[in-house]
């Protein structure tokens, strides 16, 4: 896939602290990429480098093949980790103001502001000042600001934090919609089940480096799979299989760790040879599980 956004070897230090230690990855047009990693891993720093708020010591940020320029940034949308808007400004004017800073004309900006406020569940409140809103609703306004100019690249730093389930759903839907419209989307989150649901690809960072990047399926094959099999037998049928270790036995059956490269079909056949199989499934694969194994390993 051709990458719309491309980061190559971003490096940055804050004094002695190495925040980015060679970050390289990309986001394609129409693609949603999740950026995950523990606190202090370097997600926010990476995003600030993309937005040009921080100039990394080294490395390049490219957009459609060229170094990002000011004109490109007009078509980027950003939601920073630490939310910030004008407390005393009315929502409608606030969102429209940021739209105009991104090049929209006055009328178009107001119309877009109204549209996005409606879309994000703030219809009827457009004339209220930001301070009058609850934390979660302020965050919706912040999202409206990031989205109002229909950016080609969306960079959202923990956009789901603090949203109620309804807002989470509507934001997920918005992101899918924007991706379908061709936008490249990068967001960070600690809610891994959300990342798993929304993203096609994830990038896992740790200590300023990329630990792993790819689709869930791609990441999965790098680890031994865990298979749970329930066969109606008391015998130990699995230990002797090559590349297979028994991780545990209980009433749910046996839990097997299967090395990469072992064909699960051979395991299934061995099980069937002992008796009727009423459960045969991979247990790993959740991003959370993968993440835990990667970050701890």
């Amino acid at each position, binding site marked *: 896939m051709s990458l719309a956004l491309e980061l190559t070897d971003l490096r940055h230090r804050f004094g002695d602290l190495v925040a980015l230690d060679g970050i390289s990855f990309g986001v394609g047009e129409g693609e949603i990429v999740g950026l995950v990693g523990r606190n202090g891993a370097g997600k926010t720093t990476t995003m600030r480098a993309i937005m040009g708020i921080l100039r990394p010591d080294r490395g390049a940020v490219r957009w459609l093949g060229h170094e990002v320029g000011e004109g490109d*940034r*007009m078509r980027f949308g*950003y939601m920073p980790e630490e939310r*910030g*808007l004008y407390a005393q400004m009315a929502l409608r004017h606030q969102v429209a*103001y940021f739209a105009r800073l991104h*090049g929209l004309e006055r009328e178009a900006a107001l119309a877009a502001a109204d549209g996005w406020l409606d879309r994000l569940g703030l219809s009827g409140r457009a004339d209220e000042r930001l301070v009058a809103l609850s934390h979660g609703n302020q965050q919706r306004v912040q999202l409206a600001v990031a989205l109002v100019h229909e950016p080609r690249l969306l960079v959202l730093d923990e956009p789901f934090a603090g949203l109620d389930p309804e807002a989470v759903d509507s934001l997920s839907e918005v992101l899918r919609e924007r991706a379908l419209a061709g936008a490249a989307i990068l967001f960070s989150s600690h809610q891994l089940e959300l990342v798993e649901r929304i993203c096609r690809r994830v990038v896992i960072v740790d200590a300023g480096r990329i630990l792993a990047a790819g689709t869930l399926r791609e990441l999965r094959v790098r680890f031994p799979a865990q298979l749970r099999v329930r066969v109606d037998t008391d015998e130990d049928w699995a230990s002797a299989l090559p590349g297979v270790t028994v991780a545990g036995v209980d009433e749910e059956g046996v839990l097997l760790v299967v090395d990469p490269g072992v064909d699960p079909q051979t395991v299934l056949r061995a099980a069937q040879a002992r008796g009727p199989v009423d459960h045969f499934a991979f247990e790993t694969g959740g991003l959370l599980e993968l993440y835990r194994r990667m970050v701890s390993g």
Partner: protein
Amino acid sequence: MSGWVAVRLIAGREIAERLQGRVIRVMTLLTALLVIAGVTIPGLISGSSAPTRIGLVGTPAQALAPSLRRIAQAARVRVSTSDFADDAAARRALAGGRLDAALIAGPSSARIESEQGISASVRAVIGSALDGAHLRSELALAGIPLTKVLPALTPVPVTVAELHPKAPDQAARDVAAVAAALLMYVSLAMYGGAVATGVAQEKTSRTAEVLLAAVRPRQLLTGKVLGIGATALGQLGIAAVAGLIANAVVHSARIPGSVIALIPAFLVCFLAGFLLFAFALAAAGALVARQEEVQMVTTPIMVLLVIGYVLVYPAVSSPNAGWVRVVSFLPPMTPMLMPARIALGHLAWWELPLSALIMAASVYGMVRLASRVYANALIHGGPRLGWRAALAIR
């Protein structure tokens, strides 16, 4: 988006935000009142230098008119005379305010009547006119021909050389100088302070980060300073118009032309002073980590404004002092002291162009320095920065 479109948008938001507040309305009203007072009060003060109107009652008194005027002129006391047929008519004129004093002179005595007394100098002028007349009539009675004693009667010519003459409109000039400095100080402190507060707000609320994703720090800084500056100029413009109208209404021809010419000079000085201070205060505002720290970082800059204002008082009492000249060329002092000196009217022709040049150069230097500090400090997440530390960030 071209740089200036963004600057205009940012400035527009600043103006809109300020026009919404109540502070601006109150301040506009107060400033206009201050200017109106500055225009009308000098007129009222210098009213005391109007000629003293003396009513001459009866023939002996009326005969004194020529010598009264001559003596008054020699003594630089302004008087005007008019004739009255009797006491009653003169008293009516006194009560009606058309007359300041009535002189009722008999053959050997005289009375001066007034509502509230007359100045010592007017009293002396009338006294010596009476004395001269008395002397002449006594000499005539004694049979001494007037021509013989005329030399003795001629006053010894005394020239009074004023080494530093006060202009006749000095009071008006002094008031205008102090009023201009006060208004300059208040406006710079208020609108400069608004710049620092606004910058700190954007930084501490992290709005700056959202803004900086779309515009460059330079645009953000310029837009903010220009927006707030335009609001300030608008407010001062209203005050200036109010002042001109007040001047027309009170028809105060006593206000020297130079005081009226002070209005455009004031606006130019304000513009230069505002740029100088606003950029400095914007950089200061960007140093803070919390809104409460704004006061602390801006105090050293604000103190300069106070000093400039306070120095106007000694400058008014000795406008020709060397130190006044020198200090008025120091950029942070210029906005307060130059308009005052213009009002006082003791400028050499080269002083204004030189001062303008110095101001322009220092504004340029300040813009460069402040932009750098601002851009570095605005996205700095840590605790409050010092100027040096902010400059040192790459």
